[in-house]
């Protein structure tokens, strides 16, 4: 137990697809849990770091101020940070809004779009709600990112290759045949 490495994961502006892909390593999960212990992660439902992590896996880009804070917290508490998936690396689907003014996006989402509530005049806001950023930022524009796993989602094989590589010592290069962007 003592020499198990600690891993933390989070989904920022993501869809949890990357987390699904992580679970897709199937039977290798059994090998993984021999090697690691999950701390803060939606998989454990631990919401605050209880100890320092060796590896932090970040899914999703940074679209609001809470994402910024969480990402910084991960950087503070993890030795190695990995951007997992297209959204973490380049903003992904949420970043489609990056060339549209924020105001237009909010109006479309809450006031004028077909899914908006008829007669709705208010864009939801509250001190406890995160503030939306002017655009979606790739994680590596906010904190130092050590490794990048592209894909939407990255395949289970790629995630496994990266994790097992890191856990066994050093991760030099990713197997090229596993690098995909969709």
């Amino acid at each position, binding site marked *: 137990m003592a020499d198990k490495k600690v891993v933390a994961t989070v989904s920022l502006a993501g869809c949890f697809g990357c987390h699904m892909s992580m679970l897709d390593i199937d039977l290798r999960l059994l090998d993984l849990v021999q090697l690691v212990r999950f701390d803060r992660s939606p998989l454990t439902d631990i919401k605050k770091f209880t100890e320092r992590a060796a590896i932090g896996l970040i899914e999703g880009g940074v679209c609001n101020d809470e994402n910024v804070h969480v990402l910084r917290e991960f950087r503070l508490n993890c030795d190695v940070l990995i951007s997992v998936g297209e959204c973490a690396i380049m903003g992904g689907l949420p970043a489609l809004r990056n060339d549209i003014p924020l105001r237009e996006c909010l109006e479309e989402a809450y006031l004028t779009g077909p899914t908006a509530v008829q007669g709705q005049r208010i864009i939801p806001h509250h001190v406890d709600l995160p503030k939306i950023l*002017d655009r979606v930022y790739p994680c590596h524009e906010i904190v130092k990112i050590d490794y990048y796993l592209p894909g939407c989602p990255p395949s289970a094989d790629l995630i496994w290759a990266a994790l097992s590589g890191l856990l066994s010592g050093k991760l030099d290069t990713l197997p090229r045949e596993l690098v995909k962007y969709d």
Partner: protein
Amino acid sequence: MDRATELAGIVQKFKSDRTRLIDILWAAQEREGFVSHFDLEELGRLLKLSVPALREVMSFYHFFRDQPSGRFQIYLDTSMIAEMNGLSEIRDEFERQLGVKVGQTSPDGQFGLFETSCIGMSDQAPAVLINLVPFTQLNRQKVNLIVHRLRQGVELKDLVHEFGLGDAQNANSSVHSMVRNNLKKPGSFMLASVVPGAGLKKSLAHSADEVIDTVTASGLRGRGGAGFPTGKKWAACRSFQAPKRYVVCNADEGEPGTFKDRLLLTEYPALVIEGMAIAAHALGAREGIIYLRAEYKYLEAHLQQEIERFRKHLSFEFDLRIQLGAGAYVCGEESALLESMEGKRGEPRLRPPFPVEVGYLGMPTVVNNVETFALVTQIFNQGVGTFRNFGTPRSPGVRLLSVSGDVAHPGIYEIPWGIKIGDVLSMVGAQNPLMIQVGGPSGIAINANDVNREISYEDLPTGGSFMVFSKDRDLFAILSNFMTFFVNESCGNCTPCRAGNVALRELLRRFIGGHARSEDLGHIDSWASIVKRGSRCGLGGSSPNVLTTVKAAFPDLFVNAIKPGADSLFFDFNEKAATADYDRTIREMK
């Protein structure tokens, strides 16, 4: 006359020749100051070209307009030297007086206000072009007066008169401009007075091969900047069998801070025309073209007159015409210039084949700089020996230097190659100099302390631009201006130049904004290398020079711009700025 008939007349004047598209578009634009969709449809029908094909060419050149853009079209020169001499004040004054922002046309359709790159007036900055007529050394009062007078209905021609005509030929009715020559040091070779036609006569006494041998023996190198041996270029062109050969004079003097061709074309056009005639004799060419940048359109009538005047010295058939450009720095690159002359987008060609083999309209063509032709004439007048008395073995002869910036005497100087930087600085009255940009933004930046470096192909080559920046100047502001210039003037053909210069400018902004990290120091060189080595032509090949040479000359500049703690794992991210849009939206919605 109805518009369709008028356009038909224009097309007919150019014999329905698509390769004369730039001329046709200029002629079409003359009446309304823009080329309408109707015009394009008509022209397309007459030239058997589609409207998109016409737009493809037209939209490449920034002086062509496809929307109403004002009866008076004002273009502000945004060069660094203009910026140092009050560009922001005159921009502000124009905006205030006209009630429009840069890029807009006043609602009454009278004025359009736009920006352009260096217009070749760095010795009398800040300057603007109004309907391609230069107004120089402006300030708020003069801007005020310009707008006031034009609103009163005063003609541009009379307004120029009111401001005061320039010296010498500038005051001639064929030029009629307020431009001043600012010839500070004439020298004894290039601008020596000569009997018109004498050099040509001497060359005609020799065979074509002998003429080329003479030019080769002189060691003359092209004055545009690249410094290719002129004799070698001519010999190469002559070696290709073809039914026709062309002589082209590159008068697209676009490198910011250069204005020496302006002087040659104003005061010594005969030297240039004669040089072209000598080249025609050497190459067996029967046609010559002067590609004149649109910024110097005010010299067109004058040049045309000089061409007519020179005809009496021609004992062989040599037709010379002027091709007006339409606003694109990249057209100074010889193959882009040829594309433009053929009525296309001014994008550089792939080489080989080089223009000496496949040039204008597919024929072997020599493209030389204005100054190169003037020197050819003088070499035949005064002899190879006299020419070689000046300069160094690898950089023989003299050249003109356009000096601007923080100097007591901005203007044009004839210098021998090999002159020391220190000597130039004292000659021009440099004021507390910090940095010198030799050869314009695409050239090399040096520390003004390097007084023993010399202007030569061995050390610091230049196409004529020499900009001095004093210790009071912000080097980052200069870099920013230069990188924006390259972003604006990249033709967009190849990836490294089109996208790479934008990335380099972003990188520079990291330093300016205080977000740079230590690794960005290395990025300057490595990203620059991608643009420099990957680009298709000399524009991209030289655009990163300014960043890398400033970094080499002033290493502390970039290092000091990296804030303490910048290399933290947490990047500089301004959360408040990033949420400002949200806060504003919510506030306004309430």
